[in-house]
């Protein structure tokens, strides 16, 4: 195990981390054989509303009903080829897709999990509109998996195969626009037990799971196809769900920052308690201080007042100095207040950061006076239309009261720098009931056996094999596997290409071109053909770069066409000999004077003419022979 200095003693802090990893599978949609691709082509739209359903006790969640009554409408954008009636909730589901199910079983075995005998699809109620039906279909495929790490084993209690939700395009006041292309793409969901006790351990587990997923060759790649969520808590803190971690390397950083956040929030709590403030001491009293800011230099406030808005203030007793206290690099308790208020206003002002933003000390003093604040008391200001300002301040009050209790349970969003911001409260227990439109699906033991006996090689094993079997440099082998060029690589080797050449072209040459040309246009077929030309002796290995460069720009061409057009096909031995003789004749004086000593000069001049069209080794053989003929005979 790596020795490194940790910022915190995680064992002492009782760090607990669990992962939840979602990844799209590259198959048809889960419940209808629709291609699972994204597209910006919108050919039709329709609108729906989602109504909370009655529970078995005949109850409807009052909050959900209230939300419904506000009349929020969901607008769905569709494309005739990438969605169908199933995903418009206009036809019962089909499926589940067999290929997706088999991939899920492969993943289960790669993660040492045990598949269930019969798969039961469930409806998980989601009424934010992201699922047209109002629920997500999900099923457990396997349980009881395990990942070994140097810190100990981490359990994988469940592996689920579910459908992805629609993409959100725009959120308006009364309307949310979704696009249907993503809805129904199979999503594998892997969750771990909260047995991860070190930030680096989380990364190791995520890497292992990611490797298993990639080994199947049936997962989607690219932005948004993988979603890693972290559940982080420390003793005395709270369980925080962090959504949307994209990069593996960010996992330990985000965990460390979350520990830091929780510790600092606990320190603030202790300080508040020491100062003797109770949640109920924070009163929902709004002070209209608009008049104080009538001639303010703050442009934001002036603009609001001009538009008929108000400046409202609330009193936060004993909070002075704590709102401005840093809890994560660059983020303060005040930032957490602002995150909550964001639903209503772009920002808030608090005493610890003032005077600033055009607000003067004089104005601050007047607010202090108006609110009758003591040395320890703080205020928060919001400038907005009155109702919005009140709603925003209510959110601040709620968060301030929570600060006295400690760390509030939340779902937070990962930020690119490793910090997190508030997203929403933790979801309640999911309401799930059976999807009666999909018959239970028995997984026959012989299918299980077939899958288990034909498991793909895990990426790390593959790297080891390449090093051993093909004597590849380890980092080259690793890159081949990481870039998922391994399949093509093995194909080229079986065609007769030397492993080191295949690897260096696939990794070094192709990657090197990335900055110059859109290299993703070069298909496997292009690459295969180019190597075929090389094996036939039609091109030199120096020609690959030029051919791929041209193919990236004109992917409709074939490698053969490019080689011919660009004059990259090799010269015959006679032609090479003729060129060499020509060059020697042009430099005959030097050759005569220096004899074999002219080798470098002649080689250089010849290569300038034939580079990419003749093998350097061949050229040097002929040049040597010719020079020997002249000087020796």
């Amino acid at each position, binding site marked *: 195990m790596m020795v490194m200095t940790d910022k915190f003693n995680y064992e002492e802090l009782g760090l607990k981390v669990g992962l939840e990893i979602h990844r799209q599978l590259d198959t048809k949609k889960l419940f209808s054989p629709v291609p699972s691709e994204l597209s910006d082509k919108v050919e039709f739209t*329709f*609108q*729906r*509303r*989602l*109504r*909370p*359903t*009655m*529970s*078995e*006790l*005949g*109850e*409807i969640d009052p909050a959900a009903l209230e939300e419904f009554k506000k009349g929020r*409408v969901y607008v769905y954008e569709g494309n005739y080829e990438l969605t169908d*009636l199933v995903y*418009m*909730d*206009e*036809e*019962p589901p089909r499926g589940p897709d067999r290929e997706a199910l088999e991939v899920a079983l492969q993943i289960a075995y790669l993660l040492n999990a*045990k*598949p*269930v*005998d*019969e*798969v*039961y699809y*469930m*409806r*998980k*109620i989601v*009424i934010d509109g992201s699922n*047209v*039906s*109002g*629920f997500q279909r*999900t*099923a*457990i495929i396997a*349980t*009881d998996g395990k990942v070994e790490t140097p810190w100990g084993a981490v359990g994988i209690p*469940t592996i*689920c195969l579910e459908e992805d939700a629609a993409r959100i395009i725009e959120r308006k006041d009364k309307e949310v626009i979704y696009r249907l292309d993503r809805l129904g793409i199979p999503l594998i969901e892997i969750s771990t037990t909260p047995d991860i006790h070190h930030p680096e351990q989380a990364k190791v587990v995520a890497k292992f799971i990611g490797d298993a997923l990639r080994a199947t060759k049936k997962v989607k790649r690219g932005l948004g196809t993988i979603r890693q969520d972290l559940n982080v808590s420390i003793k005395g803190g709270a369980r925080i769900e962090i959504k949307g971690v994209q990069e593996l390397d960010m996992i330990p950083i985000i965990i460390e920052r979350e520990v830091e956040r929780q510790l600092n929030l606990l320190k603030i709590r202790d300080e508040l308690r020491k100062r003797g403030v109770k949640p109920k001491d924070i009163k929902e009293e709004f002070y209209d201080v608009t008049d104080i800011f009538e001639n303010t230099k703050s442009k934001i406030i002036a603009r609001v007042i001009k538009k008929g808005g108000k400046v409202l203030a609330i009193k936060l007793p004993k909070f002075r100095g704590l709102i401005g206290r840093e809890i994560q690099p660059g983020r303060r308790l005040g930032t957490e207040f602002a995150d909550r208020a964001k639903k209503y206003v772009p920002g808030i002002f608090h005493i610890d950061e003032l005077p600033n933003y055009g607000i003067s000390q004089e104005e601050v003093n007047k607010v202090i006076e108006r609110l009758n604040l003591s040395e320890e008391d703080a205020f928060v200001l919001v400038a907005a239309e009155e109702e919005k300002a009140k709603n925003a301040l209510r959110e601040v009050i709620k968060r301030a009261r929570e600060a006295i209790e400690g760390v509030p349970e939340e779902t937070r969003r990962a930020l690119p720098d490793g910090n997190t911001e508030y997203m929403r409260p933790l979801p309640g*227990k*999911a*309401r*799930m*009931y*059976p*999807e*009666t439109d999909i*018959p*239970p699906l*028995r997984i026959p033991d012989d299918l*299980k*056996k077939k899958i*288990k006996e034909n498991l793909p090689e895990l990426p790390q094993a593959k790297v080891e094999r390449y090093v051993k079997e093909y004597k590849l440099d380890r980092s080259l082998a690793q890159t081949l596997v990481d870039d998922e060029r391994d399949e093509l690589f093995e194909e080229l080797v079986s065609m007769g290409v030397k492993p080191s050449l295949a690897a260096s072209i696939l990794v070094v040459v192709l990657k090197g071109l990335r900055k110059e040309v859109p290299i993703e246009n070069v298909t496997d077929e292009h690459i295969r053909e180019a190597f075929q030309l090389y094996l036939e002796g039609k091109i030199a290995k120096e020609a690959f770069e030029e051919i791929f460069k041209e193919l990236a720009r004109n992917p409709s061409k074939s490698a053969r066409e490019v080689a011919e057009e660009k004059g990259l096909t090799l010269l015959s031995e006679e032609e090479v000999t003729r060129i060499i003789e020509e060059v020697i004749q042009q430099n005959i004086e030097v050759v005569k004077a220096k004899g074999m000593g002219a080798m470098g000069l002649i080689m250089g001049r010849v290569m300038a003419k034939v580079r990419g069209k003749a093998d350097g080794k061949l050229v040097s053989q002929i040049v040597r022979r010719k020079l020997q003929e002249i000087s020796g005979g």
Partner: protein
Amino acid sequence: MRVDEFLKERNINVGDFVRITKEEDGEEVTYEGYIMPPYELSAGDTLVLKLENGYNIGIALEKIRRIEVLERAKVKPEVHFEALIEGKPGLPEVTIIGTGGTIASRIDYETGAVYPAFTAEELAKAVPEIFEVANVKPKLLFNIFSEDMKPKHWVKIAHEVAKALNSGDYGVVVAHGTDTMGYTAAALSFMLRNLGKPVVLVGAQRSSDRPSSDAAMNLICSVRMATSEVAEVMVVMHGETGDTYCLAHRGTKVRKMHTSRRDAFRSINDVPIAKIWPNGEIEFLRKDYRKRSDEEVEVDDKIEEKVALVKVYPGISSEIIDFLVDKGYKGIVIEGTGLGHTPNDIIPSIERAVEEGVAVCMTSQCIYGRVNLNVYSTGRKLLKAGVIPCEDMLPETAYVKLMWVLGHTQNLEEVRKMMLTNYAGEITPYTRFDTYLR
């Protein structure tokens, strides 16, 4: 072994919280969860367990090594809904007659079982909006799938509707499964004579246990329509795939045109009566509807059940017609090809049917358009054989109408006259251009 025997042998009940150890490929796996009742479609040798995270999984019985009960099933309190909704003064009275289909329902989140919600309180909880429009009185008449609906059920519904209307209701809504709703709508259209108030049939294409169900909006729009000025039998369902508006279709001109879409019901050869928005706005698409009046509705429920609906197809054998005649059928509605044709070789059987006093009516399997038996010689032969051409009537409507007509007279001349008389908007006088595929 089957699940029920397996559980019985071990004295385990549905709902018990258990720990199960099974052997999977040489290794042991342990699950904890609640025993679920076996699914209808399960293989029967799988035990369904609800895990604590809410998911169900199936465990093959033969792999189970140990099973221990950790906690016995709790007896669930039965839920009673009392009809305690107080009417608001000034609102019109509307009865909702339940016949089956789950227009409003509640769900058991454990088993997924759906119970119809049909007391006022349940309805009020599920779709509170309707109580702002009318004092709704739910009445569960029977609870059957619409595919099991028989002519005797139409009669029962007709009497129940008449009873409600004649005892002062402002309108009636009939909640009905969608498969045969068109037939029931046609039957009520003929049976309810002197109708002075709205009668609205409504259903749902997506069951009401899902948040996206069309049931609530359909119900809201149908209650709105039941308090309107239209004194006709109508079907009110989604007008398009979105939850925007409903359409009110004339009961004799409406057909289920899609197996699953929520806008499956379409007016055929006719323009719908109105568009209804859930906020109460009604846009009339025509003016010639029957207006509300004080007339007392009468139920004319005389029907002849020995009527068949036969679809013509290439290769159809005249045996089919002969069989019906031999079995004593009194009427046959043919769904002919094109303008209203049958193969020439079955015409002799049709001739024989008519000679034996069987009423033979012609409609078209094109669904859209009007039959015309004068254009081709086959048609002329059929006319000569005594076939009654049913204009632009839907085959299903013609079938229901023929039952009703034959309930009144079996004199073929009388039958012909009645079949060609427009009683409930089933025949349009001329074919409008804007009534095709919309």
